[in-house]
């Protein structure tokens, strides 16, 4: 069964190709932007792949200066005339992401005095935008550390508290079980933005305002409920006999939970930790309200976007740094998360 005729096959390939283009093209352009220099950013139409070097034409002037010409696709244009090494260095740095010391540039260009106008191919510093992001956003380095720490705290708080609740929900029948279930759902529905302001006052009272622990507590609010939700659905499926066997051999409840049940529930915990991580890693608005000095990386990048669209390549580089740990983490736990969703093969 399930054989497709030619028309159906064509339609299917068309839909899938459209999907691939819609996903891949923006990603490639985004990567391209992160590695582009100022001239490439203003170039139109743009190249899909950013260049690794810059070619300029240099002509000596009668005053002993160098006139630099650049071909932006519409022919050569004079862009700067100077012999000052500092000026040259700054210019090539800012506009071309070429980080060659000014003296070296002057030395190279001096050949033109004998040979006449020459073309120079200069190597572009591919990581210029990344360095620039950390230079402009002075807090970015400490923010990166903060983001990692806040994520770890959030995972620890959510998983320890949430998995205990999930176990109780799955294994025991007790009064108010339904009420608690609904309450957990309501907690998750509450817009975090709304809690953030009164939370700030609460944290000030506890002396936790502008601390990483304070932020982690806020991020744990939806994630404790989510962890309870996810783990309870897994605990239901874990064989009870194993636990009973453990009881027979004299282990108490707590011991059984730690030694038998918890390891079996690992996929659920991996999935929960991924959601906890992503909440802490991606949030901007709560970090904006609850921190002052101890910002997270997402917030620093958010602020770097600003309102104008100039120098957006630095923000793009910053957000690429932001994506990489999220990708790595997602990739590591993907295997376990797939088990959660009924073994979707990816």
């Amino acid at each position, binding site marked *: *069964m399930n054989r497709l005729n030619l028309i159906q096959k064509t339609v299917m390939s068309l*839909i899938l190709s459209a*999907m691939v283009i*819609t*996903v*891949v093209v*923006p*990603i490639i*352009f*985004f990567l391209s*932007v992160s590695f582009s220099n100022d001239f490439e950013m203003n*170039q*139109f*139409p*743009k190249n899909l792949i950013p260049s690794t070097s810059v070619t300029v034409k240099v002509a000596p002037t009668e005053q002993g200066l160098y006139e630099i010409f650049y071909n932006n696709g519409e022919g050569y244009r004079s862009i700067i005339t100077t012999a000052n090494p500092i000026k040259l260095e700054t210019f090539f740095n800012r506009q071309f992401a070429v980080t060659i010391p000014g003296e070296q540039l002057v030395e190279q260009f001096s050949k033109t005095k004998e040979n006449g106008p020459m073309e120079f191919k200069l190597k572009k510093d591919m990581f210029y935008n990344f360095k620039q992001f950390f230079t402009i956003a002075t807090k970015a380095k400490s923010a990166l550390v903060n983001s990692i720490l806040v994520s770890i705290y959030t995972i620890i708080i959510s998983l320890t*508290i*949430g998995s*205990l*609740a999930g176990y*109780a929900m799955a294994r025991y029948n007790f009064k108010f079980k339904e009420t*608690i*279930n609904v309450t957990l*759902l*309501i907690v998750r*529905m*509450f*817009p975090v*933005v*709304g809690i*953030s*302001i*009164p*939370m700030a006052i*609460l944290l000030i009272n506890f002396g936790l305002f502008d601390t990483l622990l304070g932020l982690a*507590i*806020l991020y*744990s609010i939806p994630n*404790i409920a989510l962890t*309870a939700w*996810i783990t309870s*659905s897994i605990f239901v499926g874990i064989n009870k006999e194993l636990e009973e066997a453990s009881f027979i051999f004299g282990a108490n*409840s707590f011991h059984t939970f730690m030694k038998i049940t918890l390891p079996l529930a690992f996929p659920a915990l991996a999935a929960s930790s991924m959601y906890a991580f992503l909440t802490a890693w*991606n949030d*901007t*608005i709560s970090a904006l*309200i609850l921190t002052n000095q101890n910002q997270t990386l*997402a917030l620093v*990048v958010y602020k770097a*976007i600003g309102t104008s*669209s100039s120098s*957006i390549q630095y923000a*793009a580089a910053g*957000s*690429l740094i*932001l*994506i990489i740990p999220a990708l790595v983490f997602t990739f590591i736990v993907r295997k376990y998360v797939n088990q959660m*969703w009924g*073994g*979707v*093969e990816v």
Partner: protein
Amino acid sequence: MNKKAIPYLLLLPTFIFYAVFWLTPVAAGMKEVFIDINGNFSLTENFKLMFQSELFGQSVLNTALFVAISVVLQYVLALTLAVLLSRKFKGAKTLMFISMIPMAVTPTAVAILWKTGLISDGWINSTLVTLHLIKEPISFLSADGFSALLLIILIDTWTVTPSVMIILVAGLQGMQKEFKEAAYSFGADKWRIFRDITLPMLKPSIVTSIILRLIAAIQVWAIAVMVLGYSKVPFLVERVAFYVDAVPGLETSRKLAFTLSFTTTVIVLIVSLIYLKVTKKSSAAGGKK
């Protein structure tokens, strides 16, 4: 140890955590909603303030349109992709992986990605001009009204469709083939099988993913602000963020932020409950796949 006490003991940390860090701020927030600017108790004063506030009507309308259009659009796309990708063919796994990439892109990065595309010398115009589809660059970012809303819906769809798709794929893979085969042997065509067998069996997955989408869609704001800026495409939660972030410190800002987030929560609760009532199968929304 008393056996009856065990579940309560296990739940105790959760109770304590939520009592201190959730109930207290929520109660404080609720109190703010019903105390007016002059410090007097009033059931309606802050809501009047909210109704009269700038762009409130627009934000309600936008949120409603956003939820309706985006959920339907993302559903049609996710279901189509899920059905196609769960067929067994060469390269299906690779395609599945590609389709899931947008899920892993951080919201802030999504905003920058599309902003670099939408500026007038950005990569979207660049591609369209190179392909000779348009002559002059379109200034996407100066879009307003419905077209700006549509822009946000499309960006959101790019980001969110994979997470809907993956739940549906899981549902499709867990489905027993025997039913389909039986229907085939009784002469049912593909469309009937899809409508009468696949869709009903997929229902729990659909209910779960729609409820998650509804909760998230009603609270949309970040993409709109990061791509277009505040007040361009006002949404309910965008207004909350606006009063908290853009005009903080004012007493009316505080009141409006609290009242708006209270209202949003009530709307989320009502919509979710109505949806669960309509689909009845409420256990599916309990997270059990």
